[in-house]
């Protein structure tokens, strides 16, 4: 390399000099001027290109001017006949990805290469042209590309096919015209051409079920040469099987024989793909599974780590639905616990934890104990979660599993790992009553030496709720009070609250708690002192010891019935004045998260999880928007704003969705409109609503949108009056009416004359769920027990035949529009019964809690018992009415 070699580190031997040491962008750009020399030095030019590639690969960026300059210089290199240099030039042009106005410079050279007699020039020119081209140029070269797809040289054909795969993303209409040529290429004798052609053909036809089915049928009968193509075929076949959903009762699943035949293919990747496809079949039977499990079992003892990993990963998934089918592999998997690749070992252990029976738990735990010391935290977390499920499966084994958890809790580990263990212990304490006292003591010992403030405070909170209910609450006091001496202010404040809870619940401990709380009055932190003062007053500590009244308990144990995020926003907006802050002014609605932020909806919440809360920004935005319309000023405060409901299909000319704002006596529909046609300007946009199927509603106001330019969303509103406090429901049909003015694309100026036009939108419904706010509670049991059992309304309902319990649970949750609590919306697979807990606030600010118990029989008939508690019996009855009429 041209760069002088300088020794960069005395400790390194001389092998370690870097040819790029001290490389600097400015200098390389200077060097790139050699591309302009009249006598090109091909070797030197290649070296400079290598340096440019190195810079780009190091994350260096070129400014627009620099990139343009390099690009123009590189195009000069087409003059050279040096083959090595030409290959580098192709790569460099792709890396620089020139802008549309620069592409023209290189097009003619590439077009020349594309028609060259040298096949390799043709192949590379196709690859480069397709990567830098736009739609207009593509139409010009389309003829050559179609020829190239069926070129007898497989490299040229592959280049055109792969380019087609890339171009399908940007110019689908053009690429779809090539399907005859691609179809021909699928029959090619060259393995790679067949692979690329199959991939492209499937992408072209992926929305045409019949065509995909025909393709699969013909190819499964014929011979596919490349193992890669065979893998694709297996995937497409699984897709066809999934979509055909034919009767599997008779055992004649279409294409099963093909998949099973692939298990005897000579390429391992094909065998594995077929095995995995079989394990993922819907409602797969044990008979169908057996041959697939057998080959996966063989892979478990393969010398190739990738095969072992792939096999154990697949078996891990099978173990979730068919644990018995995997038990034959247990011995092979036990030997994988010592696999050097820790990912394989972890998967083996978690699979064994799923397939093991009660008698093997102790042996397994012994093996895991040795294994835990030498794996990273992220693997440990997976194991801890698997142990938690195992313990819930075999509650009698809680002693050894709880001991295991407490032992690993004492060892070194990061926050996430410790949190996973603590969460598991908390869940076991909640679900297995016998494990409670032991578990609480483990947690107490942990906080004696816990470096994580978050975990200490969460455990103290949990101790405050569960500790007083144990047989000997006094034994926990020492651990709690130690925190007041030894910890930071946050933990000290938590400890004070926990002490107060013990004082409130256990009258015999009260005098001693008062002594401890009084000592906290001299703490150096004001929050700790404030809390101690507050609790001493609440519990009556200043005078003589009296029985703690209901209000104090409600204050200490009741849940904060507003989402914390909303409270925070309201407090920030509160301006200090004569009027005190009113907590009832805080909106209670939990907003659903925007789509991009949604994460794993099925994931169970952690044991110590706080009640769900959401961003308050949407609430604020709606409030601001509604308050800007004078016609709505006397409607009062919004009770609930729904999530947007789409009234048009995706990719239509005008995109409209609607948000329903519910007030005490009014409903406002906010139509969010977007004009997706650049050549049009819409004016006086309004939605004409026909409310003839919504008898209790009468239209009182509407606010048109004056102007709706292209791609700049706007809102129009329609308001209705309805009877106060009544959950009126109804169906509304909508018509978008507007004046359309054509826009001159060159100037952007609209024409003077406009034409009135209409656009039919989907119907909209106001349903009962619109009158219920999703408001969570932090502890459902406490909240439930604090409501009067005499006002509970219970009834049973038949929900008819359902696919499974999950479907039934989701249907009732969305019907009621309430907040699922404690992760009970997730139904374990194959469950025959399930309890789901919901909470919410009914219109009129009435708190309501619902306990749903579901059962499913062998005919898939679902029965449900609905128990409702609320502060107002009428509301409980209303909830029953919603279910009865839904």
């Amino acid at each position, binding site marked *: *390399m041209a760069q002088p070699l300088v020794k960069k580190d005395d400790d390194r031997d001389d*092998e*370690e*000099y*870097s*040819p*790029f040491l001290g490389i600097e962008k400015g200098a390389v750009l200077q060097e790139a001027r050699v591309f302009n020399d009249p006598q090109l030095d091909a070797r030197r030019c*290649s*070296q400079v*290109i*290598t340096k440019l*590639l*190195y810079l780009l*690969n*190091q*994350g260096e960026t070129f400014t627009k001017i620099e990139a343009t300059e390099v690009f123009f210089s590189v195009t000069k290199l087409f003059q050279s006949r040096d*083959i*090595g240099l*030409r*290959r*580098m030039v192709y*790569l460099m042009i*792709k890396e620089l990805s020139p802008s549309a106005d620069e592409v023209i410079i290189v097009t003619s050279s590439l077009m020349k290469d594309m028609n060259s007699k*040298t*096949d*390799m*020039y043709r*192949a*590379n020119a196709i*690859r480069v042209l397709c*990567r830098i081209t736009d739609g207009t140029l593509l139409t010009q070269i389309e003829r050559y590309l179609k020829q190239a797809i069926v070129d007898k*040289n*497989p*490299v040229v054909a*592959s280049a055109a096919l*792969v380019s087609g*795969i*890339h171009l399908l993303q940007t110019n689908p209409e053009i690429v779809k015209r090539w399907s005859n040529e691609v179809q021909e290429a699928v029959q090619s004798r060259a393995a*790679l051409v067949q692979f*690329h052609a199959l991939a492209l053909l499937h992408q072209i036809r992926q929305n045409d079920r019949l065509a995909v089915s025909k393709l699969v049928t013909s190819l499964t009968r014929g011979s596919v040469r490349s193992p*890669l193509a065979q*893998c694709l075929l297996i*995937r497409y076949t699984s897709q066809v099987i999934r979509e055909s959903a034919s009767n599997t009762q008779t055992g004649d699943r279409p294409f099963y024989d093909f998949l099973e035949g692939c298990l005897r293919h000579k390429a*391992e*990747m094909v065998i*594995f*793909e077929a095995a995995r496809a079989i394990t993922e079949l819907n409602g797969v039977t044990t008979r169908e599974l057996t041959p697939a499990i057998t080959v996966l079992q063989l892979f478990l003892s393969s010398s*190739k*780590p*990738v*095969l072992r*990993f*792939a096999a154990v*990963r697949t078996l891990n998934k099978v173990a979730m639905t068919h644990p018995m089918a995997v038990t034959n592999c247990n011995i092979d998997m036990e030997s994988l616990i010592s696999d050097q*690749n*820790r*990912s*394989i070992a972890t998967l083996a252990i978690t699979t064994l934890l799923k397939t093991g029976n009660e008698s093997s738990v102790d042996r397994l735990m012994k093996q895991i104990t040795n294994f835990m010391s030498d794996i*990273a935290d992220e693997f440990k977390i997976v194991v801890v979660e698997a142990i938690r499920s195992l313990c819930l499966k075999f509650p009698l084994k809680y002693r050894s599993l709880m001991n295991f958890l407490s032992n690993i809790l004492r060892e070194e580990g990061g926050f996430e790992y410790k949190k996973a263990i603590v969460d598991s212990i908390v869940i076991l304490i909640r679900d297995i009553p016998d494990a409670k006292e032991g578990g609480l003591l483990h947690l107490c010992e942990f906080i004696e030496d816990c470096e994580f403030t978050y975990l200490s405070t969460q455990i103290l909170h949990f101790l405050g709720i569960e500790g007083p209910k144990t047989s000997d609450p006094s034994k926990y006091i020492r651990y709690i009070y130690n925190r007041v001496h030894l910890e930071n202010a946050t933990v000290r404040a938590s400890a004070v609250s926990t002490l107060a809870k013990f004082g409130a619940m256990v009258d015999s401990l009260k005098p001693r708690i008062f002594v401890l709380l009084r000592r906290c009055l001299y703490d150096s932190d004001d929050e700790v002192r404030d809390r101690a003062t507050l609790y001493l007053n609440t519990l009556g500590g200043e005078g003589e010891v009296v029985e703690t009244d209901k209000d104090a308990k409600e204050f200490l144990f009741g849940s904060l019935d507003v989402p914390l995020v909303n409270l925070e926003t309201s407090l920030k907006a509160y301006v200090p004045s004569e009027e005190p802050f009113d907590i009832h002014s805080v909106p209670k609605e939990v907003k659903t998260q925007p789509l991009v932020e949604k994460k794993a909806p099925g994931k169970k919440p952690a044991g110590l999880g706080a009640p769900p809360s959401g961003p308050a920004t949407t609430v604020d935005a709606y409030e601001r928007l509604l308050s800007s319309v004078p016609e709505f000023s006397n409607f009062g405060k919004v009770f609930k704003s729904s999530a947007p409901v789409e009234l048009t299909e995706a990719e239509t000319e005008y995109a409209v969705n609607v948000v329903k704002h519910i007030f005490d006596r009014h409903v406002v529909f906010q139509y969010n409109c977007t004009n997706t046609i650049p050549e049009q300007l819409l004016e006086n946009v309004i939605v004409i609503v026909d409310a003839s199927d919504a008898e209790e509603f009468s239209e009182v106001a509407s606010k048109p949108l004056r102007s709706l330019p292209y791609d700049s969303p706007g809102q129009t509103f329609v308001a209705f009056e309805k009877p106060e406090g009544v959950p009126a429901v109804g169906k509304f049909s909508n018509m978008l009416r507007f004046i359309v003015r054509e826009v001159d694309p060159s100037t952007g100026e609209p024409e003077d004359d406009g034409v009135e036009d209409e656009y039919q939108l989907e119907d909209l419904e106001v349903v009962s769920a619109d009158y219920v706010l999703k408001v969570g509670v932090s502890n459902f049991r406490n909240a439930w027990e604090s409501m009067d059992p005499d006002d509970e309304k219970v009834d049973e309902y038949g929900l008819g035949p359902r696919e499974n319990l999950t479907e039934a649970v989701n249907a009732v949750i969305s019907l009621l529009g309430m907040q699922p609590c404690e992760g009970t919306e997730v139904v374990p697979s194959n469950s025959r019964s399930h309890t789901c807990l919901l909470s919410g606030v009914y219109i009129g600010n009435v708190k309501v809690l619902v306990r749903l118990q579901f059962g499913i029989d062998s005919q898939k008939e679902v029965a449900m018992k609905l128990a409702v508690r609320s502060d107002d019996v009428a509301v409980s009855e209303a909830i029953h009415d919603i279910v009865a009429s839904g």
Partner: protein
Amino acid sequence: MLMAVLISNSVGNILVERFNGVPSEERLHWRSFLVKLGADNLQRASNEELFVASHKSVHIVYTVLGDVCIYIVGKDAYDELALAEVMFVITSLIKDACKKSPTERLFLDKYGKICLCLDEIFWKGIVENTNKERIKRLTRLKPPGEF
């Protein structure tokens, strides 16, 4: 889709990186995550021993070859087996280009050639070629042998 191919030296400095479909703000995260994965597991690994990891639908196959560590990240259809296939062809081509297991110096000496090989193996997240002999000929603009 092939989300990333990263080649680093033994102390984690990046020599080659190709991302596809990974937003630029997430690249730093991936870079440090992969280098840490290598530091945790590849220290005692033998040459070309494959390591595998996966999270949800994202798979990672990584290995050490002489002084360089190679990481490949794929998702969906690009599962561990497909990635292993790509890894196999990358390692054999690097060995051939450097004539033996590469030191960092040898790797950088053959940097241009290695870039050309990678260009033939994959582009923008799609694998194009996995046949070593063929790729070697294509990087010299020679038609493949079987043709």
